[in-house]
Structures are given as C-alpha cells and as structure tokens.
C-alpha cells in the first residue's frame, strides 16, 4: 500500500491517517474504507477450565476489522509449547507477536532445564511482555498441563495482571456469560463435564456478542497430549431462541 501526497488531502479514518489524491471528495477511495484500515481485532469469547488431570480451553472463531469479519474460522488457541496453550483476545497482531516470542523463549528454557516447561513459566513470560509493553492490547488466558502442577489456568489482563484461577473467561463476549458461568461452574468436574460447560458457555456468548461467532474450537490438554475439537456454528447448542 502506498500514500500519494500530490494534491493531497489528509484525513483521519478510524485513527489512521489516510491520504486521498483526489480533489473530488465524492469519489470513494478504497483506502478510506474502514475495513481496509482498521487493525484486525479479535472481539472474541475465550475460556479455560481446569479439572483434575488437565485443562479444557475454548474459543470462538471470529476476527473482525471494524464490522467486517476478516476471518470467520480463525484459530485463537495457540500452542506456546506442546502442552501449554494461549487463548488470545484483543489485537490479533499483538497477541500473535507475544505468543510467538514466548514460544521461542519457552523452547530455549525447556532445552536448558531438560524437560517440558511449567504452565506458570509460560504464563509469567507472557505477563512480562504484556506488562512491559502497555501499548499492546492483549488479554490472554493460558491453559496447560505440566507434570508437577497438573492442569492450570492463568489469566493475564490488559495491564499485565496475572492471576491463577480454577476457570477463566475472557474477550468481549465474556461479559454476557459471567452469570451463566458463576451459576454452572462446580469444582471437581470431569473432563466431559468441562467440555460441555465450555461449549455451552461459548455458544451463549456468541449468540449475544456481535464480535464473537463462527465455530467453537476446543482443546483438551492432559498428560497424554492435546485433543482438538471443533463444533460448527450450526451444530452449537441452542438455548432460548424466541
């Protein structure tokens, strides 16, 4: 993309400077389109639930630029090591950058210690990146399994706060399901109960949040590995539909 400043008229669209090279202000310039200029945002609904022996994580699949759905089948569950995953919400670019950087550091660390890394190590490294770079827009949920602590869930908020939780929800869609989750979460659920809980909660969030939708992707991580599942949008559980 390029900017021509000849006979330039500069205007700000969605916070980004766009140069129009035409004196005819009625002519529609592609570069002025909101969906051409806005950074990719992941409105998102993400979630992670720990159970005895592992963790279930889930996310929707909608990435937006403004009101355009740039990717309706995105994968927001990103591995940073074999058994540690990050659920990403916020800016797509920022969270991709942070996860890839930490994946590199975690691998070097794992080579030094000679065994798979701890979930809390991955979470702590990500927290450092988010905290030290407050201009980044990254709200992350880390879910993983390691042999010393079992399944663990860590939540990193925008400023870089890190908290360990039995379960966590995040993203714009999470606002609509706090009540549902508080009412339906029970400690010591089985693996299957956790998977159902995640799919139900995310379906409810996707039904109400415009920035969340598409399919529900889940990953269940335990001592034996990672099992990834996907529930297409038309097979999601339907609650009250009027």
């Amino acid at each position, binding site marked *: 993309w390029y900017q021509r400043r000849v006979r330039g008229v500069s205007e700000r669209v969605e916070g980004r400077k766009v140069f129009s090279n035409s004196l005819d202000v009625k002519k529609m310039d592609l570069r002025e389109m909101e969906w051409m200029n806005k950074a990719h945002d992941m409105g998102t609904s993400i979630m992670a639930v720990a159970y005895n022996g592992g963790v279930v994580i889930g996310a929707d699949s909608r990435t937006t630029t403004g009101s355009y759905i740039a990717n309706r089948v995105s994968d927001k569950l990103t591995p940073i090591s074999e058994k540690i995953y990050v659920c990403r919400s916020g800016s797509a670019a920022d969270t991709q950058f942070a996860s890839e950087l930490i994946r590199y550091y975690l691998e070097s660390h794992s080579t030094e210690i000679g065994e798979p890394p*701890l979930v*809390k190590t991955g*979470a*702590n*490294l990500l927290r*450092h990146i988010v905290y030290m770079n407050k201009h980044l827009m990254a709200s992350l949920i880390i879910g993983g399994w390691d042999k010393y602590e079992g399944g663990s869930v860590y939540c990193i908020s925008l400023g870089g706060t890190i908290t360990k939780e039995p379960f966590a929800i995040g993203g714009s869609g999470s606002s609509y399901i706090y009540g549902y989750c508080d009412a339906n979460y029970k400690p010591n659920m089985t693996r299957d109960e956790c998977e159902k809980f995640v799919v139900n909660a995310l379906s409810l969030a996707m039904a109400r949040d415009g920035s969340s939708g598409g399919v529900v992707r889940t990953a269940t991580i335990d001592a034996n590995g990672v099992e990834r599942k996907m529930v297409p949008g038309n097979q999601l559980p339907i609650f009250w539909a009027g």
Partner: protein
Amino acid sequence: MAGIGSGYDLSATTFSPDGRVFQVEYAGKAVENSSTAVAIRCKDGVVFGVEKLIVSKMLVEGSNKRIHTIAPHIGYAAAGLLSDSRKVVNKARDEAKYYKDYYADPISVKVLSERVANFFQSYTLYGHIRPFGTSVLVGGVDRKGPQLYMVEPSGVYYGYHAVAVGKGKQAAKTELEKLKISQLTCREAVNEVARIVYLVHDDVKDKDFELELSWVCSESNNQHQFVPADLKAEAERLAQQAVESKMSDD
C-alpha cells in the same frame, strides 16, 4: 613447581603441546592448598561442612562465613581463594534471582550449577583475566529431590553423592566412601560430616579451626540454614570423641 609449564603456562590462552591449559591447572592448586570442605547428599537433603582455619585469636567467632545461601533452597560452600568465591556467590545469587523473576519457579540445583560452570569456563578463555581459584560445592533440594554438584576452576561440573575439596580431600574421600550414603538421613550425616572434618584437620600444620555446618533438608523445611546450635554441639562432641579414640588406636 616453576619449570613444569616451561613457557606454556604464562597465559590461559596457551595450550601446551600435550593439550593442557596450565593456568587452569594452577588454579586447581590454589584449591588444594585451602582448608577442607565436605558435602553429602542424603536421602532427604544435603549437608555441608567446612573446616575454617582460624588465623588469629582476635577473630570474632562466626564472622567471615564460608558457607553461603544462594537461594532459599540452595546452599554453597567453597574452597580456594575466598575473594574469588565472593564473586561467584554474587553471580550465583543473581542467576537464581533472575531465573525466578522470569520463569516463576525456583531455579533447580542442576541449572544453577551449570550456569556457575559456564561462568567459570568463560574465565579460562582470555589472556586479560585469570581463572577462578575456587572449587565450589552447590547443593540443595528442588522438584527432583536433593542434589549436590561440584564445579571446578576449569568449568567442569559433576553431580555427587558425597564430595570433599581442599587439603584434606584425600583422607575425607576415604572416609566418605566407607559410608552407606543412600541410607543416610541428614541428621545422621551431620554427625558424619563433623567427624570427617575433625579427622582430616591437621593439628600439626594448622592451628585451631572452627567448624561450619549447614543443611537443606526436610527438617529445615527444605530451606538452607546453619545446623541448629544444639545439633552442632552434639556433632562436635561426637567428632572430638572419634578423633581421640582414633589417636589412642594409632
């Protein structure tokens, strides 16, 4: 000693024709001339014992310790040039602190030992700095259980069940090999370590000494601390008895 190296020993950047770096070996000599340090890795922890020679009657007892704490769960004892050892202690403490800052987990004994070893090795490569004149015992309890390592001035490090460094190391090793280490608890090892240090102390060449004893074990909640005064007093009493009975045997 002068003449052994014959010109290949002037700098750490020079190999001899038979593949030795003499400066590093000479650093080892500094260790061999120092007083003894002993450590045992037991079933439930690690015990350190150091023979601290008293050079003057005016010295305050308990000042100038030779056993240090690197991290709450890791202890350290050194033999050789003690001023060199101070630098190593500070470096090891930094490594442990930054490791915990970044990785949210206490550093494991093996990783710390490896970092100290790499640090030692980096001082054997250049002409403008000399190798460290200390051998360092690093021991503690981490997720994998109790572990003990010794790092030599060359940067080589090994894991040990029991180890001794310093002038009494040969005699100490003989004693250590007689023990059934895999069955020792730290409580028992405290007495053994004290006894061994007393045994290898050379009354003729050296004068008085102070014994420093420390442990990291389940009794100390896996924290590195100096052995409680009453246990230490008992261990020293038994050690003195052992020395006297040995002298009467001779």
